[in-house]
């Protein structure tokens, strides 16, 4: 069992909430399948990819893809907001304009397109993808966002640094904690804790008067700059300032919430074969490594990635992609709680 410990599975099973979005087995897509798709994709124009990575990072992935599949180019369109990416596809479809061939984002975003019949259904098994990587016919796991607790090394000693969720509730951190405005980590915690406990936790954190950030990248930067000594952020976002020398330490809480980002092939895309090829390639060891090297965000379902090694033996929690539609309302409630600072908003 390479990724999820026996304890993890026991916990996930015991709470009977959908878990294990992260696969213990990786995609076994054959080279013949990939090359066959590449041949079909050629001559249909560039593969248009809507995704959230910075353009410089995406350019590295595009270069590797073009090298692996000569004659095929990726045109990457970034939407860092997340929510806007589905809106863009819907608008372009309504205007009969060229839209994405493949979209990579959170399941909640992709489901908006599934509900509008804008995502191709795939027979992932026939393509060599195990069900644990592609739990729904519409999506395939592409990468894993991992949430960690960040602290400023110069302002907080090792001994004082909060290492777990309850540590954040210590009054000494009042007004000194940073959160992402989107309740993605809280939603993943709810997979294990349940909605009530998670709501109580959000309200307790709100009593600490935390700062909220539009993105976890500035959040990590502000921890590094000392603006906020403590934050709950994404591992790969924290690695950007850490690699540049910022005094940030991170610790994995227990459990570790994760958000799997999925890829979906857009049904009205001009080069759907190219989109499917990219989605499959990102789930192979080669594609996953290139993606992780470029963006710092690894695929927990693929052997050999850094994130897979980091998470080994830890308790992970996340709703699987097919359960996300059932939890959208809870996600909305969590988001409103965070945005309102603990006050319920209609």
């Amino acid at each position: 069992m390479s990724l999820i410990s026996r304890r993890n599975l026991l916990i996930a099973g015991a709470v009977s909430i959908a878990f294990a979005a992260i696969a213990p087995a990786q995609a076994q897509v054959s080279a013949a399948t990939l090359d066959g798709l590449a041949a079909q994709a050629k001559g249909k124009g560039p593969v248009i990819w809507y995704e959230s990575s910075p353009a410089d990072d995406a350019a590295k992935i595009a270069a590797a893809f073009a090298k692996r599949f000569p004659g095929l180019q990726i045109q990457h369109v970034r939407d860092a907001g997340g929510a806007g990416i589905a809106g863009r596809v819907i608008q372009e479809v309504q205007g009969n304009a060229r839209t994405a061939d493949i979209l990579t984002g959170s399941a909640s975003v992709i489901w908006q397109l599934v509900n509008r019949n804008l995502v191709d259904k795939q027979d992932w098994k026939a393509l060599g993808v195990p069900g644990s990587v592609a739990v729904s016919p519409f999506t395939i796991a592409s990468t894993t966002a991992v949430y960690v607790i960040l602290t400023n090394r110069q302002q907080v000693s090792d001994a004082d640094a909060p290492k777990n969720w309850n540590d954040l509730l210590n009054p000494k951190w009042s007004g000194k904690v940073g959160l992402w405005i989107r309740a993605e980590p809280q939603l993943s915690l709810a997979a294990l804790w349940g909605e009530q406990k998670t709501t109580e936790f959000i309200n307790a954190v709100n009593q600490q008067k935390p700062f909220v950030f539009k993105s976890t990248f500035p959040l990590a930067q502000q921890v590094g700059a000392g603006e906020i000594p403590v934050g709950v952020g994404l591992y790969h976002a924290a690695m950007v300032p850490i690699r540049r020398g910022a005094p940030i330490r991170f610790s994995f809480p227990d459990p570790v919430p994760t958000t799997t980002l999925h890829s979906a092939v857009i049904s009205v895309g001009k080069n759907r074969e190219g989109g499917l090829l990219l989605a499959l390639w990102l789930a192979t060891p080669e594609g996953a490594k290139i993606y992780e090297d470029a963006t710092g965000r690894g695929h927990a379902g693929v052997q050999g990635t850094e994130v897979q090694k980091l998470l080994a033996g830890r308790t992970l929690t996340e709703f699987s992609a097919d359960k996300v539609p059932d939890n959208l309302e809870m996600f909305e409630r969590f988001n409103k709680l965070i945005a309102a600072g603990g006050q319920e908003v209609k």
Partner: protein
Amino acid sequence: MSAAPRAAAVLPYGSGGLARRLAAAPVALLLVYLVVVPLVLLGMSSVRPTGFPLEPGFTVANFGKVFLADNFPRLVWTTIVFALGSTVLAMVLGTAMAWLVERTDLPGRNLFRVLVILPMAAPPVLLAIGWAMLLSPRTGFFNLLLRDLFGLQTAPFNVYSVPGMIFVEALALVPTAFLFLAPAFRNMDPNLEDAAMASGASTWMMIRRVLLPLLWPALAACAAFLLIVSFVVFDIPGTLGMPARIYVLSTQIFYLTADSPTGVPLYGQVSALGTFFLLILVVLGYAYHRFTRESQRYRTISGKGFRPRLASLGRWRWPTTAAVSVYFLLAVFAPLAILVWASLMPYQTRPNAASLSLITFENHLDFLRNARLITATIHSLTVAFFASTIVALLSLIISWIVVRQRPPGARAIDNLAFAPIAIPGVMLGVAVVYVYLTLDFVFPIYGTIWILVVAYVTHYISFGTRLANGVMVQIHPELEEAARTSGAGSLRVLARITAPLVWPAVAAIWIWVFAHAMRELSTALMLSGRNNIVLPTLLWDYWTGGEPTRAATVGVWLLAALAVFLALWHVLNNRSAARRA
């Protein structure tokens, strides 16, 4: 003395012959296309269940969700306090600066004239980050300095507050206020002031009875403009308010658009909020017209020649210079210096002796090596050049029609030109996307830089026309009448008489739009596609990608480029003035 109105000088709204109507028709049609079509889409979006204007269904639920929400009254109150506070402070500073630079013998005023508009080149997001680094309660440079100097227990300033947001927003608006008011001060005939003083009026009476009434159109136009801008502005409340959970209407729109919990933007609620902005515009637009209705009374440029004379500051000359210098040091140089500092750091850190060892030019070298930068720079310059040129010319023509020609529907044309200011950039971007996706077979500009030009022209025409109107009403029509009497046609009068007289205002419009187009972010993000990357979206890439030091580097280069541009413009302007003299 030409302040007294002449009844026949200006035709009332609605009068005029066929020629006037024909001249106004193309402009009216263009404005309908640029402004009404997006507004219609905004309205459609607000009553669609999904918020997507081209999807079926009808609902008023979006209005209920927005206006009946528990937090709505607090949201509106915070917005009003923020907008009014920013406007008042910006007006006070901008008016003082315009008067000192244009009408007094302040030493170094030519330098100050350039410096005062320099912050306009910095994207507001970067200014907000700069001020956070200066006034953050924990790590702010000034706070730490004051705590060390005076042994304070707590930080004296907190930029993450409504007063902090007002302060930074006001400083960001001062260049706009200056550009509005400087031409009005410059175009004032000092003979009026002399006449008042010669008649025994005190200085205060002269200011109250002569100066303020003469400036009233420009002051009112400027205040109305700044107030609306403060209502819709996102960058500074988004950067300083949102982390502390202080929301204004614009940040609520951003939240509903970019951080929607459902996974798609809640355009329906965004559009419903947009209608609230339009309501505010109607009220402010009405107030604006009331303020400027009698504006022809205050014309000061006539056929009689005059040279604006400078008031002597006397013994206040050097204290005033010191005060202005301190203002520039704190309000302009400090945030810009902190950006330069950030651009030299490997990661965001506060300035102190220990951090000096971290200084690196890697961000700048990387910036110059980045191939995307060249593309983004070319795109930004192209977009800014075309948008500013079109807005300047169009504003001149619209103001000429509205203030001088006054054909039937002139007021409607003026209102149309004013309306886009109330459309939040995010919403304008969405509407423009729909327009050009629908018309892709006629105008295939979706995903190109030209869609940015169209959006910016729409967005900035309100500023251009307000500024041009404010100056146009100060110019007495007797010069134009004289030209017409000599046989010149309307267009010839515009080209040979009116345009040269309003040239300072046109130049100010061009510069303002150029600088703002170079830094505009929210609309550019909504319209970004495969082939239209510009410098602000590149900067945003760095910022959201966790690299504020690289974002600061883009800001520093933007500032440097604009500083060179402003200096060149200033030199050319001075030479031109010298030749004219």
